[in-house]
């Protein structure tokens, strides 16, 4: 009998252990799972911006805190020894806690965050942009790409280091020979081979971004390449693609390193801080009146554009730098100098200073000087910082000076004016007519026009051999010089009209053979995004925190529901456990009573069997009245039932929790 008893006890212990495991499992499948999901998202985000330390993990931290609170609540409620509430009511409390820590937080986010986020970001980033984990992931990717593009901008304009300046790389013999090699390779390729060969992103992450940037912003605006006709079908012009790839491949190792370091790289951080201050104080804030808000609300009318371009604004920076009595260059408080790598201008100023040393006032270390007169488009007070080698200027350098920003710099995006395609020139009749009019002694002119007799596309015209001959005859100039002079002239006129703010007109023959005309601000030249993206970058860490929190939103809703079920299931486990324990205890009492009197001389095994049947019936349908009846039939637990308070549901064991 004792053996059967022991086995019975062991069986109960096993059930209790199993129920406990099940209970814990149910709890784990509720709120803690959000932490895991959030962690997956945050790790992916962190990999994009490893330099933002803990910020991308704010979401997982929040999830962790919520989970911790949940665990504490569960422990406080379920492990309390002297609770007067029933297990059912405790379960309800846990369910409420789970809902408050999940769905209620999501509701709060939905109610409070949309307008707050819009206000904090001046209506540049909206809650709807982040409202699910997919969108949040896309936004995170975009925000990380802002950092990468800022690095590209400042590598290629020479600001990060003169080594990576586009013009310097373009003139580099090694790069040129590499470009030639790539060009000849591309000529033999199909578009698919080209893609496979040059854009293996597993081997070179972000190479496509770097290449696109160099190709679109530098090569396609470089008059040497811009008007070249596509020569490889489906790919484009091999010559400029070759140069873009050669440059991209040359700078890629350093770019890749900087992407890892991001804003933790001192030079990148310094450039950001210094140049953004100029963009903000001498740029955006000076436009912060009625007009700039029209731009963001779909009211950029012609009069508004004209006002934004032509109104005489102000520049916050008024003071100029000077060399103090200790030989240090001082940029007074309230001045925001933009720092740019400008080799030609520095060389010109240094050359002028050789003839007239008074135009520069050097600091005591002779590493930088303050311009004392207006020269090369810079006013007195500009700080010249030549590139030094062995303490001597080695050619090129940086200039720090106040900047007159255009309204288009605030936007920072190129504006496509037109794309002219499918133009075929058929001037044979016109040439014949001219030939008939021109006297014999001017027949050389007709000869120069002969190439126009054959119909040709615009691209073929611009790249035909006859055009340079004609231009040489007429103006003794090549096409590129003519177009370059024209575009620069237009820029000069715009600067005069706008009081010094720059805009560029670009002409390019794209890879589809269409002539593209676009207007671009000076952002690429100065290595800056538009104001909105620069501002995002300023608080990118916070934005990543918001993004990581927002990635939780849908999970909080979904796991709010899951948590309710899981907590309820866990509560059922607890109730069953409680009943089993009670049964064990009561059986033990009955056994003790049986040992002292014959009246209860029931076979232990039978009792155990009856108890087991009762338990099974209850466990199979704990809230079924039949289970209760079956239980009652045993006769044993009647006392317990009688002791139940009236308010208790009749099928729920009125057990107090004293586990």
């Amino acid at each position: 009998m004792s053996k059967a008893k022991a086995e019975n006890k062991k069986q109960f212990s096993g059930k209790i252990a199993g129920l406990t495991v099940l209970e814990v499992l149910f709890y784990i499948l509720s709120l803690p799972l959000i932490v895991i999901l959030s962690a997956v998202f945050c790790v992916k985000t962190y990999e994009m911006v490893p330099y933002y330390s803990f910020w991308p993990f704010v979401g997982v931290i929040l999830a962790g805190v919520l989970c911790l609170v949940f665990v504490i609540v569960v422990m406080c409620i379920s492990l309390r020894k002297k609770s007067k509430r029933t297990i059912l009511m405790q379960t309800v409390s846990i369910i409420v806690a789970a809902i408050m820590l999940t769905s209620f937080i999501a509701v709060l986010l939905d109610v409070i965050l949309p307008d707050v986020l819009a206000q904090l970001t001046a209506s540049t980033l909206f809650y709807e942009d982040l409202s699910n984990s997919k969108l949040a992931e896309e936004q995170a990717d975009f925000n990380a790409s802002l950092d990468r593009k800022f690095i590209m901008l400042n590598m290629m304009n020479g600001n990060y280091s003169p080594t990576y300046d586009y013009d310097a790389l373009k003139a580099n013999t090694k790069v040129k020979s590499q470009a030639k090699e790539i060009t000849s390779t591309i000529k033999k390729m199909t578009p698919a081979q080209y893609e496979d060969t040059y854009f293996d992103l597993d081997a070179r992450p972000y190479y496509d971004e770097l290449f696109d940037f160099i190709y679109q912003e530098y090569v396609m605006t470089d008059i040497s390449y811009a008007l070249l006709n596509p020569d490889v079908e489906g790919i484009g012009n091999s010559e400029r693609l070759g140069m873009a790839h050669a440059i991209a491949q040359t700078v890629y190792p350093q770019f890749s390193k900087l992407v890892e370091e991001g804003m933790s790289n001192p030079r990148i951080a310094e450039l950001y801080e210094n140049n953004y201050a100029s963009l903000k104080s001498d740029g955006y804030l000076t436009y912060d009146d009625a007009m700039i808000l029209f731009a963001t609300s779909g009211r950029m009318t012609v009069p508004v554009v004209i006002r934004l371009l032509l109104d005489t604004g102000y520049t916050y920076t008024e003071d100029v730098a000077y060399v103090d009595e200790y030989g240090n260059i001082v940029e007074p408080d309230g001045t925001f100098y933009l720092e740019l790598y400008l080799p030609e201008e520095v060389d010109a100023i240094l050359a002028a200073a050789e003839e007239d040393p008074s135009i520069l006032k050097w600091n005591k270390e002779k590493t930088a000087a303050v311009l004392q007169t207006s020269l090369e488009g810079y006013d007195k007070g500009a700080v010249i910082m030549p590139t030094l080698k062995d303490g001597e200027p080695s050619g090129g350098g940086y200039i720090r000076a106040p900047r007159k920003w255009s309204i288009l710099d605030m936007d920072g995006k190129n504006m496509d004016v037109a794309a002219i395609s499918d133009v075929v020139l058929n001037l044979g009749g016109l040439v014949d007519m001219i030939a008939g009019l021109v006297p014999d002694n001017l027949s050389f002119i007709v000869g120069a026009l002969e190439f126009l007799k054959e119909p040709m596309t615009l691209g073929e015209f611009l790249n035909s051999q006859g055009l340079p001959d004609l231009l040489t005859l007429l103006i003794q100039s090549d096409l590129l010089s003519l177009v370059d002079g024209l575009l620069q002239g237009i820029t000069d006129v715009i600067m005069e009209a706008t009081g010094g703010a720059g805009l560029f007109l670009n002409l390019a023959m794209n890879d589809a053979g269409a002539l593209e005309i676009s207007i671009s601000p000076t952002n690429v030249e100065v290595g800056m995004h538009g104001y909105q993206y620069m501002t995002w970058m300023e608080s990118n860490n916070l934005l990543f925190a918001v993004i990581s929190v927002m990635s939780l939103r849908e999970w909080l809703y979904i796991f709010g529901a899951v948590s309710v079920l899981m907590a309820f299931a866990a509560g059922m486990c607890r109730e069953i456990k409680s009943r089993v324990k009670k049964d064990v205890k009561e059986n033990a009492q009955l056994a003790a009573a049986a040992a002292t009197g014959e009246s209860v001389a029931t076979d232990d095994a039978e009792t155990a069997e009856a108890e087991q049947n009762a338990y099974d019936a209850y466990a199979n349908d704990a809230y079924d009245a039949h289970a209760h009846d079956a239980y009652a039939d045993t006769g044993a637990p009647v006392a317990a039932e009688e002791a139940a308070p009236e308010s208790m549901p009749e099928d729920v064991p009125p057990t107090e929790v004293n586990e």
Partner: protein
Amino acid sequence: MDQRSKNKVKLFRTLKVVFYCLGLPLFALAVVLTAATEYAGELAYAGMAETELFASMKVLFNGTALYGVWVAAGVWLLIAIVHIVLVKTVKNRRARTLLVGIVTLVVMLVPVVVMDLAIPVKLDQIQQSLPEGVTLASYEDEKGHFYTRTSASWTPSGKYESNNYYFVTGVENFLNTYKIGMYGGTKGPAVNNTSNAPVTYGDLFLYENGKGIAVFENESAIEDRLVKGDAENELTTYVRDDSGNVVAVVTTKTIDEKNGVGVRVKYWEGSSADGEPTITKDFNDYYFNVTNGLYYRTSAKAEMRDGIYGYASYNSNGNLSDGYVFGIDVALEILEDYYYTQQRMTEISNEVTLASGSIPSDAEIKLAAQQMLDYYYTEGEASDYEKWLYSRQDEIAAKYSLTTDELRGVLDALGMAIGDKLGDQFGNLLDLVGGVLGMALTDPKIVAGANAEGNGLYVYVYTQEDLTTNDQGGTVIKPDAVPNISVTAEVAPSDDFGGERVITISLGGAGLGVTETIRLGLDSRLIDGLSPLLDGLVANAQLVRYTTGGGENGTDPVYYASVAEIVYDAINGGSEHDVIGIVGTIVGIVQGLIPTLGDIFSLFTFDTVTEGNGQVTVQTSTADMLYGVVGNVLNMLYWYSSAEIMPVYNFYDEAIAALYGDEAYANAGITGFGAYAENEYKNETVEYAEMLSLYDRAVYEGGMHGYIVGSTLIPGTSLISGDTLGDGSYSATVPASYEEVVLFKAELSYKRWLYPLLGVRECLVCFLPFVLLFIILSGVAAEKEMLYATGQEVAKKSKKERKAEEAAGGAQADGAADAVTAEPTAAEEAPQAADVQQAADMPSGEDTAPLDLSENDKEVL
């Protein structure tokens, strides 16, 4: 209690709740659904949100869409309160049910009756205030048509073609056409006017001893520097000269830090701030902008307030601020002024004309008003600050508009850009063209070729007298001959352009009628140089403009002296020259047929003087006329408007006073002062001027200001802003006459609250019987529940059960009764015992709640 009775209790308890829900809650739900589908989310019923924070909720709760919901909620609440009171006071269940029903009937009917009585009166009042010809729909009509049930009235988009639908779409069309919102808003919280720039020290103005002074206007060290500040602390600025030496120190401190108002400036001449400041002044009329750390003039800032067009963002001079985008009410006010004033001005003019009288013309009024404005801001009642500001208007306007000098600067930049960047190419081209011309021209009187420098060409035209025969018998030019016409073109440095290369085309010679060589270029010289050339050609042509009575034949011809005169006559007529006179006549006719031509011709502006003989002398030079055309075109896109100086249309009333000889303006120098006598329709003229002022204001605000913000209310305001409304295409659904505007305004004033109320009225009427029915049924169900629960009623056994019982026999029946419980029998026999047994017998959960048996006996009828 047996199981059957228990089931009955459950049944009636459920029915009680279900019936109640089918009454007032269902009515309230219907009202909410009506509001949600018909009114909420519609712009016509939207409320104003002052800030963006939680704007969607503010729009809903501040609007009228929920008016019906509030009424329904009020009805329900009132009935519920009465119900509760009755539960506590009336013990008889049936009486209580009856009372609740009566109260429900009254409470639901009262709003209906009140609406039916009050709203027609209100609509009548609105109708009385409307002008003749504008008729509102009657209340009964609105009640019948504010929504529709007819299936055929459903449009494909699923909307009712009801009065509500027409109203909602009418509002939407209006807003979409003009690109505006229900409520106006500003786009510039900080400054709100483009010309409201941060102030410099030279701008700081204060009053001392009743006299206004610009304290730092002559302090050269700081007068042009921005007044910078810090939100909380004193900010010190060291002013340095070109060498970096400190020449002055200035500190600023916001006086009222909490509100950011006023600035205290301390100024020290010299290199340090030791000792007493040279100047310490408090400037109270300025405010601090935390965003950029600069100070602004308070009177240049706009504020949301009530003004001429209602609640909107106004400048201190009464104009709408640059950053303001119209709300529907303001837009309608402007449109009403625009249409009404035209109608009224026509009426007044016709009235005076029919009486063979005359009133001052628009031009007279406007000229006098401009002079009055000038007088007001120079010698008139304007404050010292306003006078000082007025004296600087040209300087300020230059920053926010394109002056002729700036236009010249841009053209010169173009010339220099071409000369600098493309100088070689152009030089080579000219060289080639010169060479080609030299080879191509065979006339001996014309000599052409490339110049010696290889950067240009020359073409000389001689007369026949300049030709001679050389020794070889060929025809050549005499060595000392001077070209009758000389044309040279070259790309060369020019002193006029700071030594930069520019393209210069030189024209000279007697043949062109010019005494000095004229130089043209692709720069400002194009206009400046071309004008005298053209004028010279005109003068040489001796085109008769008009004749006087002198001379041998009684006619002394006066010739045209400039192109400007020809253009003036061509536009205005009056020339005696055959061709120009005919052109002038044709232009006059065509202008009448095509009004746009008038806009084009108005681009040509002339200063004229009318001579004693009635002839008009044009004093504007041809160059000024051409610059004027460019400037006028640009002015349609880019103009300056002060936020503080009042516009000229504010002075039309004073202009009329002056024209009628008001002695107060005797010294104002008004042209035509006292030209009209008091009895010459002064009252009509005063009203006419008032209308003209409103009209001009409406055209400016709705047209020019609207053009800036992308919401042009007044079509055809200028040649540039065109005939389209807003920035989209014309829509026939917007009101386009005075009557339509007034009707739309009136509808907007009452339909916004009327339709939501009619919606709830409809629900009140339709739901009233059902609500009453279900309240009664709910009461009955409650009573039945109580009767079964207390054993006062027992559920009858089914036939099957009765047969089974009969078959079972009496003894078995006793045994069965023992085996179950004794309670049902006890309950049937003794209701008093129910309270003891009920907890054990009733089903679990809330069904087990005991009834108050102490009251049950009183409730049973």
